[in-house]
Each structure stands twice: as C-alpha cells, then as structure tokens.
C-alpha cells in the first residue's frame, strides 16, 4: 500500500495541488512533490490527467463474511420516549434493506417503551426490545455490552445509530470491541449497486469537504448519522412485524460508571430538536439581556430559541441551545437567524432547514447565501417590527 509518483509522467501542471485536502502537494522544479501525512485518499490520482500518481491499494481481503445479513437501526430513547432520529433512520434503513433485499431490525434499550408497534408501522420487520429499569437512563456501559452481545449473536451486515451525544460516545466502543470500521456523523447513506457495500458520506474539515467512506473487509458496516438529515417516513398501520423481547442479564451486563444525577439546562418550553420554528441569535445580539427580544419573538411564533457559538461562549445562553457543528443539528420548517454571520460551522447545523430567514446588517454576510429570505438591517429594528406585525394582525 502507498502512493507512487511517476516523475517521468509528471508534467508539473499543478492540477493536483488543490485536490489534496491536506495541502501536501508541491511543485518543485516542475515536478510534483509529496510531503508527509498522506492518507491515500486518492483525490490527487483522480485530478491527474497524466496518470502520474498511483495509489496502490492494499491487497484487499475478499468482502467480509457473507453470513452477515440485515440492516439494524439503534433507536435511542429518553425516559421511555424514542427520539425522532430513530424514525429518521428507520425510513433510510428501510430503503437500504429493500435495496439489499434483506430485513430491517430495530434495537431498542430502555424502560417502559410502548412504541414497538409504531416502529413496525414505520418500516421495521423486527424490533429487539431490551426493557429494564436500569436501562431507563442512557447508560453507556450497559448499552455497549448489550449491543455487542446482540450483534455477535445475530450478525447484521449494517448497523446505524444517531450521531447524538449518546451515539457518538458509545457506538465507537461497540465498533472497537468488534474490531470493525465506523464512520462518524454521516449525512448520506447509499448502497453501491456494484459491490453492495454501504457508501457512507460525511463532512470533514468543519464541513468544507465531503468524504465517501466504505468498510470493505470487516462486519458489520457501522455509521452514526446526523439527526435531521433523513426525513421521517409515513406510518402504515397494517404492516406486520415481530417484537422480540431480549433478556437484560444483570450478571453479564454491568456498568463500571455510575450516573449520579442529571441537570436539565433547557430554558425554553419548546425543545430545539422538535421545534417547527427556531429563532436563533448570534454575536450580533450583543449581550445576554438582548436575548429577551428574541425570546419574545419566539414566544409569539411558538418557536424555540437557538444560538450560534459566541453567545454560548460568552455565557448569554446555555450550550444546549447551540446550533452547529459542535452543537445541535436542526431542520425546522423555519429558521430565523438574527445577527449570525453564517460561518460553515454554524451552517453545518441548520442549512437543511426548509425555510431560512436571515436578518443581518452586513449585506455581505455569508448567511444570505443560504437564506430563502434576507433582510439587510438592524435586528433591533427589524425584530420588534416582526413582533408588532405578528401581534396586530
């Protein structure tokens, strides 16, 4: 495995330079030169018109275990209620399973869950349900061991879970125990028609570059998927499926860490992830007290309050309101960005919203590039006008 540059073929055109996501290529004396740090992604090979760059693939073992079958969705819950990402993954999982001609199973750990029939209506063929009081809160250790046991027993070929704080903290552990690959925070899942492999697409470099990743030789193929990128399907009450209760074995499945308490941070009645409308403020809001104006607008619209990172960093609003790459991904029907410039890291969390309104006094702010409607102006003038109009009509 490695990268070979054929200097006889290289004409020093420089076409490849900008293709390298790591900027490792240089032209020296009309020949291309590669610095250390190459990940063999192959972008330069594609960019070269002279076949001067060759990535030698490691001799691939034949595609792993044909005994692995079925698509699994891990359905996350809190206090017995499933998160919406579970249903989003179910709708995509159904398509993947249909393409592969295999079954779709949902794995659910928790206590007092009564949505199993609904999961079937939304496309599951089987629901593996592990129900025990100890599982009611999200207990990483128990979930890790529980999921590993099930995967080892039933051998699914694909396992997907939400890229939530829970998913991103315990799914990597499952993958490490199984010694298989895991692709984080995917925004696209497809089946390659030729190989039947799962094509997992995700943003890297803070959303500047997209990468498509495969897991060829290990099973299962695993990914965490960003909430709100796939749309929830429509239920069909006549669908038939099986609910399989799995024993929670207290002796085998134990936790080393102990959850002592949970402190709720949300200051609003409406949760960000579930909101149809989000009113969001950025550095342009100026200070903590000014957020009251946005809360008032949110109040008249029945909206939730969101934020870019600077107001969170400065302590104006709690972190649980942060939207973006290191905050939440949201996809409301309407997102109103007030005093937010639209940095890639913020866009990463909201650009798939159905309708985006931007209010910003800088006409060149990048947020206007994604906005459906833009108002160039002072938010302290515009927002009160919106409140007035909404209240008066």
């Amino acid at each position: 495995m490695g990268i070979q540059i054929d200097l006889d073929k290289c004409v020093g055109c420089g076409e490849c330079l900008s293709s390298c996501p790591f900027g490792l290529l240089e032209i020296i004396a009309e020949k291309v030169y590669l610095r250390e740090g190459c990940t063999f992604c192959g972008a330069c090979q594609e960019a070269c018109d002279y076949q001067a760059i060759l990535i030698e693939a490691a001799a691939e073992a034949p595609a792993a275990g044909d005994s692995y079958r079925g698509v699994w969705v891990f359905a996350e819950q809190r206090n017995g209620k499933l998160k919406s990402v579970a249903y989003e993954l179910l709708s995509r999982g159904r398509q993947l399973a249909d393409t592969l001609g295999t079954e779709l199973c949902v794995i659910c750990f928790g206590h007092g869950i009564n949505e199993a029939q609904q999961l079937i209506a939304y496309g599951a063929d089987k629901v593996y349900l592990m129900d025990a009081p100890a599982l009611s809160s999200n207990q990483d250790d128990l979930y890790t061991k529980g999921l590993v046991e099930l995967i080892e027993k039933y051998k699914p070929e694909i396992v997907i879970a939400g890229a939530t704080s829970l998913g991103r903290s315990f799914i990597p552990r499952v993958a490490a125990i199984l010694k298989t690959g895991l692709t984080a925070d995917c925004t696209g899942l497809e089946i390659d028609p030729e190989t039947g492999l799962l094509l997992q697409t995700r943003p890297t470099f803070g959303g500047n570059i997209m990468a498509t990743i495969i897991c060829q030789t290990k099973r299962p193929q695993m990914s965490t998927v960003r909430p709100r990128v796939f749309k929830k399907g429509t239920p069909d009450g006549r669908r038939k499926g099986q609910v399989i209760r799995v024993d929670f074995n207290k002796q085998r499945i134990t936790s080393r860490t102990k959850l002592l308490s949970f402190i709720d941070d949300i200051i609003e009645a409406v949760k960000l992830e579930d909101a149809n409308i989000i009113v969001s403020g950025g550095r342009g809001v100026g200070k903590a007290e000014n957020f009251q104006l946005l809360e008032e607008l949110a109040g008249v619209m029945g909206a939730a309050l969101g934020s870019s990172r600077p107001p969170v960093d400065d302590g104006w609003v709690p972190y649980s309101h942060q939207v973006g790459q290191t905050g939440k991904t949201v996809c409301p029907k309407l997102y109103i960005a007030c005093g937010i410039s639209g940095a890639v890291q913020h866009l990463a969390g909201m650009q798939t919203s159905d309708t985006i309104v931007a209010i910003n006094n800088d006409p060149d702010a990048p947020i206007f590039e994604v906005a459906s409607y833009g108002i160039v102006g002072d938010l302290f003038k515009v927002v009160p006008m919106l409140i007035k109009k909404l209240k008066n009509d």
Partner: protein
Amino acid sequence: MNIVVCLKQVPGTTKVNIDPQTNTLVRQGIKNIVNPFDTYALEEGVRIKERYEGKVTAISMGPPQAEEALREVISTGADEAILLSDSAFAGADTLATSHTLARAINKLKQYDIIICGRQTIDGDTGQVGPELAEMLGIPFVAYVSKIEEIDNGYMRVKRMVEDGHEVIETPLPTVITVVKEINVPRLPSLRGLAKARSAVIPIWTAQELGVDKNMVGLSGSATRVIRVFFPQRVHHGEILQGDLESQANSLIDKLREAKIISGS
C-alpha cells in the same frame, strides 16, 4: 497521579475557504497547529497534576513534524512527550489510531487518567477516545465539562449531553474526552519555553511498540476513503426590498402565504 494526554497536530483549517471559480480549497498560509480541542485536554491534565500531584505525559501519533506540537505542549505544562511515528502508521483510521495509541499507553504501564479532546478539526470524528478506552479495557466518559473530584480511585465528573449535564462517577483508570467549556488553556511560560527547547522527545516506531503491521496504519484500518468532493452550496434566496418596516411586513406575509406560519 499519572495523566496521559493524547493530542494530534492538524492543519489550522478554520480559514479554509472554497474558491467559487475553481471549486477548490483556498489554503494560503495554513500552518499546522495543536488540535484546538486537545489544548483543553492538556490544560486539564496539568490542572489535575497541580491539584493532586503527578505527571503529565503527552502522546501524539503522526509524521515527524508532529514533534512541534509536542514541544508546544511541553511549553504549556506537559512533563514528558512521546511521538509515535513510523511510515507504517500512515493512513490510519480511528480503529488503527486507537490501537496504536493503546499500545503506547500500555508500554507506559502506569496511567490513571487518559484525556482526549472531544474531536479533531480535520477528521471530526471524536471516535479515538472511546475506541481507545475499549482497546485498553477501561471505562470511558465523553464530553466532560468539569472534573469535580478525584478521590480514592474514583473520579466524579460533569459531562454535557444534549439537554443538560450528567454527573458521573467512574473508577480509575479511565479515559475521558473534554469539551472546551472545561477550562481556559494557559499560555506558555518562559520556563516552559526553555524546557520545550531542550526537551528530548523519544520517537516510538512500530517495532518499539511491538505492533503487528496489519493492525496499524492503512493496513489496520477498517474504513477507506474512496472519494472526496466539495459540498454543493444549495440555493440563492431573495433579499427583500423597500424600507425596513415594509420588508418586515412582506416577510410575514410571504411566510403566511407559503403556510410556513399560521395567521391571518
């Protein structure tokens, strides 16, 4: 208390932009930096040491130039640093990276707390910390925003989840990943800078770690990047016209017409 901090040298990419003409990365003057989230990990390690005594060892896997990153963290408080570098490590995904880091930490023998950043800014996966914990067979807590107490072989931490905070107790040794809310990293001290200049940073190769070459680097990776491309920026919307009041009014009217909001 033996504290190990894992950190990575990354391109300082927040300035990366896409040239709309050529649809390629603009990367003038991008230099390598310590992954920002890892500076919080290092600072927290140094603070634990200051509170409970002990030693902070920084470990990085990367090409030879990653030594710069290790010197940098010696100037801000790491006692020792080790570079894991070998051409066999190149092209590692998170599985191969965490395997390599685990072998190095095992070689250190003594460790109580291993601290990673929440994620890197180039790979953005946040998987190395939790995978490393499993490779070492020890507990793991993600997104730690506060270390409340370390006592008697246990550590009590506060961690961030979507809707708030959880308080968790974990036995040592343990792996944690930290978020930027946890502290404000210090600047290098004069003494630290002097120490960084003269520090000897050992390089551990595949042979020194005694790793199987099929478990590290590209060969040890389960995943492969098969394509990289630039995201499509979707659409251009409408900038409303007129004075502000009529813009505000027409916005509400449009939203109502499109049935995005209800009302008269």
